[in-house]
């Protein structure tokens, strides 16, 4: 019998054992091939990347992807090698040379990888087509589908070469293992795997304290300007937090958890129960050889959760903030009165709807002599404080009338915002904040407005984040009573005239928005709600897609490694379950023990990853994202969704693991 036929027989006889290996590497290759096809898809890249940004990202991510595939396949290979060490020892006992055994293993790997390659190419091609279809629909692109190849030959060659390189790496790693192990090592390898646990108090305490301290520092960011993040420096505190949590996670899992379980055994009432007496010592025992894997999985899980959560937040938040950045469907400045009719004519050319409203608002700049003025009063008035430093504004409140304000909100369909306002007296005003207040806001403050050299005090009755006009056209907006507005308008010329156009029939009319800049000479004051949303999706979708590839791969790897790890542990202690059955443990109780053991190993990476993700997202949101919207649970919906999806994926893997473990242990 030659190596090829032996390898075939081995794979055939152990099909159920290899099925998951084949499935998981097929998945990994599917992702790799789909990604490679996408990064080689010139038609799509031309459409979504004009400046080579996506190509650069593809190259960077492809490096990550390759490193990850190599790591994952090495891990799986090591797992299967470990499970077969005894078998290999028997081959050696029968007189097989180590080179022959290595050859057998390599042929088996070649066969498995070939199977995975075929599946990966088929599914990957399909996946790639699906991605292209999704992006063209999402971005409303016109792509000739016949130009998108199902099997990109170059991508196939690159994938095949990569897999071949991996097989060589695996063969090298296997040869190192085989030639390093003596015959006795091979035969007794599985028995020698576990060593006695040494539980140390000091590393346990350091682990616990580091984690808690790391999370406390992360939470400190909520103190705003007073927090160490701003007083000491973001990057130094960030680095410290990262190191504390990393060190803490390692020591927490390797020392603190086993130590705590050991301590918990002293609670005799809880310990002497039919499940706990098996699971608690079992956990400590398993941690001896599995703590490194568990730490690696926890970090992987934290990275996956954080990336997916930050990604979801980064996509959703700017889109949600468009309601403030560009509240009207179309908004522009009127330089000449003739502009209005020209714009109306242009809009009517693109839309025949009768629901379109055109509202002109005159904004008056008024200065104030108050000693304490809000930051919006002078924002963007000097270099270094403006988004566009070529157009600096003059300091002052930008006044609009209460009637104009309510009319614009109504046209924008913001009925809910309207309900909170009541008509203003002459000495009252509503102040539009740029950012939500972190403490006390300006309500109750009195600002003396300088109108025709006379000071007229107005009291802020309320502040709002419902700005009617975009920040490109008005910052420091003060909504005054119609009487006061009338008085202001009689004494000065308006600073700016703004036209707000709203209506369902022009929503999403991208071609209309493309035509407007030509007429307005590329004015920076032209803003549009649905155009901005479309622009954000176009700009970010490729980034999210590419990161999405990595996240999916991380999920597959984490879940599969947990699966392999649990199966391995159960296989090693199969005889333990046998003795438990003989002692009188029912199948139900044994299932309970298996479930408990698996859930512990699944929940550590998930819960730790979840905590890391929550704190990392909090820091990202508070320190690195512009805060334009009020803190609301709605903003975290995408993050919660990302977490729920992760939880579902973990649950699926958990159920698969428990099912397989029970099948291995319980007799029918």
């Amino acid at each position, binding site marked *: 019998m030659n190596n090829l036929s032996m390898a075939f027989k081995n794979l055939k006889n152990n099909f159920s054992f290899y099925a998951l290996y084949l499935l998981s590497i097929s998945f990994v290759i599917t992702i790799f091939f789909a990604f490679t096809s996408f990064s080689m898809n010139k038609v799509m890249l031309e459409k979504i990347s004009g400046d080579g940004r996506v190509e650069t990202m593809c190259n960077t991510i492809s490096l990550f992807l390759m490193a990850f595939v190599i790591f994952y396949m090495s891990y799986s290979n090591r797992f299967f090698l470990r499970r077969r060490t005894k078998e290999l020892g028997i081959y050696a006992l029968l007189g097989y040379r180590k080179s022959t055994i290595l050859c057998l293993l390599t042929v088996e790997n070649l066969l498995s990888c070939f199977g995975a390659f075929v599946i990966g190419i088929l599914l990957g091609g399909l996946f790639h087509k699906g991605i292209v279809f999704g992006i063209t629909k999402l971005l409303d692109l016109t792509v000739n589908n016949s130009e998108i190849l199902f099997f990109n030959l170059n991508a196939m060659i690159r994938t095949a070469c990569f897999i071949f390189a991996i097989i060589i790496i695996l063969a090298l790693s296997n040869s190192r293992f085989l030639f390093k192990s003596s015959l006795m090592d091979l035969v007794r390898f599985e028995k020698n795997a*576990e060593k*006695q646990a040494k539980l140390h108090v000091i590393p346990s305490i350091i682990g616990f304290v580091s984690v808690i301290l790391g999370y406390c520092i992360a939470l400190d960011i909520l103190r705003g300007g007073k927090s160490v993040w701003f007083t000491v420096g973001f990057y130094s505190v960030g680095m410290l937090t990262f190191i504390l949590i990393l060190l803490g996670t390692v020591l927490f899992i390797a020392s603190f958890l086993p130590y705590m379980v050991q301590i918990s055994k002293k609670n*005799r*009432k809880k*310990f*002497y*129960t*039919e499940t706990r*007496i*098996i699971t608690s*010592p*079992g956990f*400590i*025992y*398993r941690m001896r050889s599995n703590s490194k894997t568990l730490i690696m999985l926890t970090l992987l899980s934290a990275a996956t959760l954080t990336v997916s959560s930050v990604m979801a937040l980064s996509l959703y938040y700017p889109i949600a903030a468009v309601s403030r950045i560009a509240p009207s469907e179309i908004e522009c400045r009127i330089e000449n009165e003739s502009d209005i009719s020209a714009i109306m004519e242009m809009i009517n050319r693109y839309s025949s709807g009768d629901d379109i409203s055109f509202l002109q608002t005159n904004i008056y700049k008024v200065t104030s002599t108050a000693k304490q003025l809000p930051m919006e009063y002078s924002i963007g008035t000097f270099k270094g404080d403006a988004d566009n430093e070529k157009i600096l504004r003059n300091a002052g409140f930008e006044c609009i009338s209460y009637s104009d304000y309510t009319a614009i909100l109504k046209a924008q369909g913001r009925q809910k915002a309207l309900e909170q306002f009541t008509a203003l007296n002459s000495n009252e005003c509503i102040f539009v904040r740029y950012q939500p207040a972190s403490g006390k806001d300006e309500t109750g403050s009195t600002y003396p407005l300088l109108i025709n050299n006379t000071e007229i005090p107005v009291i802020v009755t309320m502040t709002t984040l419902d700005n009617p006009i975009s920040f490109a056209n008005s910052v420091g907006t003060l909504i005054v009573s119609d009487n006061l507005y009338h008085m202001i308008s009689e004494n000065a010329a308006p600073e700016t005239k703004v036209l707000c156009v709203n209506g369902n029939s022009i929503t999403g009319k991208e071609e209309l928005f493309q035509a407007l800049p030509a007429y307005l000479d590329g004015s920076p004051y032209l803003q549009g709600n649905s155009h901005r949303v479309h622009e954000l999706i176009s700009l970010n979708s490729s980034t999210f897609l590419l990161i999405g590839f990595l996240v999916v791969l991380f999920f597959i790897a984490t879940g599969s490694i947990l699966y392999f790890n649990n199966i391995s542990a159960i296989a090693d*202690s199969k*005889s*333990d379950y*046998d*003795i*438990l*059955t*003989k*002692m*009188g*443990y*029912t*199948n*139900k*109780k044994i299932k309970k023990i298996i479930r408990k053991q698996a859930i512990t190993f699944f929940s550590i990476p998930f819960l730790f990853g979840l905590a890391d993700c929550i704190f990392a997202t909090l820091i990202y949101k508070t320190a690195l994202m512009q805060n334009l919207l009020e803190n609301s649970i709605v903003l975290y919906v995408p993050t919660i969704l990302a977490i729920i999806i992760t939880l579902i994926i973990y649950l699926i893997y958990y159920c698969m693991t428990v099912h397989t473990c029970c099948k291995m242990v319980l007799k029918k």
Partner: protein
Amino acid sequence: MPTLLEAKNVTKVYAKSQHPSLNNVSFSVTKGEFIAIMGASGSGKTTLLNVLSTIDTPTSGDITINGVNLKNLTDSKAADFRRDNLGFIFQEYLLLDSLTIFENIAVPLTLQKLPPQKIENMIRSLAETFGIDAQLNKYPSELSGGQRQRASALRAIVKHPNILFADEPTGALDSSSATDLLNTLKKSNESLHTTILMVTHDAYAASFADRIMIFKDGCIIKELFKQNGDRRTFYEAITQEIAKLDTER
């Protein structure tokens, strides 16, 4: 003494085998007896132990232990029955590697839901009686084969089972450890009145029993009784009988 176990016409035929592993076997065991089951490989000893201990089911016949007919037990009832009535000792010790010796012995007691204090008292007193109190906090991997097997025996004895089944308990032990274990079993039989059914190939081990059932081709072909309580005389009787059986093969 009352009858504890009664086997009536027990037959076990495995699907792929032409001959029955147990062929119409009938016998009874009274409470407090120490019985050894001997026979060549494949004679049906382990099959008998499996069907008596509810691990396997007979093809036909009835087995009653402590008034309970094993035929009527469902899987979970059988598990409860093993928990409440049976103890096991195996050739490979089968201790749980992840648990200390103390915890290993505590498992059957927790299964019976005994209070923690009682569990600890029972284990400590038994460990002292049988001389393994110094090993209680060690893991199985830290003990010698003999010590592990004694721990395994204590795990079986501690819950005071109605019957203790031992399958080649001395098979993997050196002669000194084997004697220690057999003395432990004898002590348990005499002082705790544990009923013991022990499968063994070894005439020396069998000589610790009160009665010996010799199996061949699934049937009991001979029964030997310890007449005057002398182990040495009984050992000689067993070896003679085995030699006789060997010449008849």
